[in-house]
């Protein structure tokens, strides 16, 4: 390991948490580039953890784990418990409703909203088959009827105030429901068992707030179908989370495409990969970016370097072009004359932190500028660079990235135009944003 002394010193300060925010960012960028430095930091962190173990032993108080689970439950499904917002048991809240004149319909609406919110939150927060909902806790005291009647009288006297509060509650719930619905529309979770793969559509900022914008999830849907189908064929349903990039989307096997033009240009196909297309778009091949027809009747996809050859039964067999095999095109694809707004999808396997962005129709950056992809960390509310986008042929392509560190809570993505070489923080025009 040959590290400069200054790098080692920074690593030590980093491990001790003594670098300020700006220097931490710079150091983490350096860290990503230098495996030796990563190894050194790993050792330092281990050392720190070891030193931490020398603290005199103290046992945490009993019940801490239950408290932690309660906090997790309350946060992930805060509205599923059968206890009202005011901490009253359901029977008391119901009595309050009757006594204070709040319409039953309103309460039912609240409950429906709550149920819907809860479901949406579960889908968005934990798309896996994860159940964190604990049994409802209805704490009814063993006190007698007299005590209950007294409580009801108290509730009645507070009815006006609580009626108002319930109305406010309804408004808050409606707003929350609206936000969650919007968020759900913007996100696409391809397969329930591909538990942590999240697809986000990125669009021109001018379109981002359009309520009736058409969502275009067909493309990532097809990609995820291929990934899922391939895995099914090989080994049945995966036990663990599916890796989107790397092995999974270029598995050493054979894809059978039943219909439609699967965007193969967006799938990494390693050597030896083959595919059969049962409905190759022979007639409308011009509609598919990157595809060219060759003089010998084959088709060539220049993004994947695949050659498609007709089979006797009408199917097309796709194989990787051999070294030096240079198909002669009949006609190259021209960039469509129709101006299409730029768009992109990000696909992130939240389990591994591996992801990719599929961009289309992105204009060439201005002279002296590059595009840079950012992710916002919901936890720190900061933008983290995922990298500078390399030059794109025809403004389209797929770029793979890794989340820069463990512990990041990705929220939304931004693609900005930055000065050549990239920036530390987003400073240029936003080209795409999502969700």
């Amino acid at each position: 390991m040959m590290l400069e002394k200054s790098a080692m010193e920074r690593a030590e300060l980093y491990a001790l948490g003594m670098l300020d925010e700006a220097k931490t960012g710079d150091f983490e960028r350096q860290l990503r580039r230098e495996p030796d430095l990563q190894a050194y930091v790993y050792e330092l962190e281990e050392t720190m953890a070891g030193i931490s173990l020398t603290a005199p032993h103290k046992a945490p108080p009993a019940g801490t784990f239950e408290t932690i689970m309660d906090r997790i439950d309350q946060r992930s499904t805060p509205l599923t418990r059968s206890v009202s917002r005011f901490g009253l048991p359901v029977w008391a809240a119901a009595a309050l409703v009757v006594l204070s004149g709040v319409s039953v319909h309103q309460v039912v609406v609240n409950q429906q909203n709550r149920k819907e919110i809860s479901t949406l939150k579960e889908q968005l927060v934990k798309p896996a088959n994860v159940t964190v909902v604990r049994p409802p806790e209805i704490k009814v005291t063993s006190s007698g009827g007299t005590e209950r009647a007294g409580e009801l009288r108290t509730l009645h006297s507070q009815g006006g105030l609580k009626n108002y509060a319930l109305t406010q509650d309804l408004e808050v719930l409606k707003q929350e429901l609206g936000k969650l619905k919007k968020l759900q529309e913007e996100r696409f979770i391809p397969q329930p068992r591909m538990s942590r793969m999240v697809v986000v559509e990125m669009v021109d900022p001018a379109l981002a707030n359009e309520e009736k914008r058409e969502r275009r999830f067909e493309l990532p849907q097809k990609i995820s179908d291929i990934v899922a189908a391939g895995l099914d064929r090989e080994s049945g349903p995966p036990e663990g989370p599916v890796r989107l990039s790397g092995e999974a989307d270029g598995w050493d096997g054979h894809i059978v495409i039943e219909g439609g033009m699967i965007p193969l240009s967006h799938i990494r196909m390693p050597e030896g990969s083959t595919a059969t297309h049962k409905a190759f778009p022979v007639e409308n091949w011009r509609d598919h970016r990157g595809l060219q027809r060759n003089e010998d009747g084959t088709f060539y996809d220049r993004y994947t370097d695949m050659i498609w050859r007709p089979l006797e039964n009408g199917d097309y067999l796709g194989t990787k072009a051999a070294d030096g095999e240079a198909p002669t095109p009949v006609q190259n694809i021209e960039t469509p004359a129709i101006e299409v707004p730029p768009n992109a999808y990000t696909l992130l396997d939240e389990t591994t932190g591996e992801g990719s962005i599929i961009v289309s129709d992105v204009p060439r950056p201005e002279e002296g500028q590059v595009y840079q992809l950012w992710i916002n960390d919901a936890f720190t509310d900061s933008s983290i660079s995922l990298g500078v986008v390399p030059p794109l042929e025809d403004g389209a392509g797929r770029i793979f990235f890794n989340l820069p560190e463990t512990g990041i809570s990705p929220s939304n993505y931004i693609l900005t135009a930055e000065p050549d070489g990239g920036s530390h923080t987003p400073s240029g025009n936003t080209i795409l944003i999502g969700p």
Partner: protein
Amino acid sequence: MTDHSEVRLLERIGRGNSQAFEELYQLYAGPLFSYARKSLATREDAEESLQDTFVKIWDRAHTYDEKLAAPFTWTMMILRGICMDKHRRLNAKRRGKSVELTAAPEPRVSAERTLESLHFAETAAQVSRALESLSQCDRECLELAVFGQISQEKIANQLNAPLGTVKTRIRRSLQKIRTLLKSHDA
């Protein structure tokens, strides 16, 4: 300190398995709480930090990458971040007050350690021996940095020592412990 069964636990937690979460709690809560107690001034702060740490473990287990850190190291990094935030927030209130670090005559490995801490007893004993091999001044500086999570400038003020000396002591101590741990692992 990489233990593959703990890596598996984190993987299961990442998939939402609360039983695995409880198993990890049983293993790690003691050492983590012990660190928090030594790092933070009050028991309440330590309890809150421990809870926050496990909530984050639950939230972030799916992002855990064993290539970047061993499981315990990863959880300790989370806790240290939380303690650091707490130090910053409480700094104004407790300006200049030591966090019971300089007076640390307590035994480094308690005889009353329970099952969960036996898991770490060997590592703790190694590090304790390594710490004992440091000079008193070097150890003091390192402990303030690791447990007190205060800047080198503040450590220099607190120990009434030149900043350069403090930097050297921390660096030297850290390297020594690291080397000792590495040689033991080898």
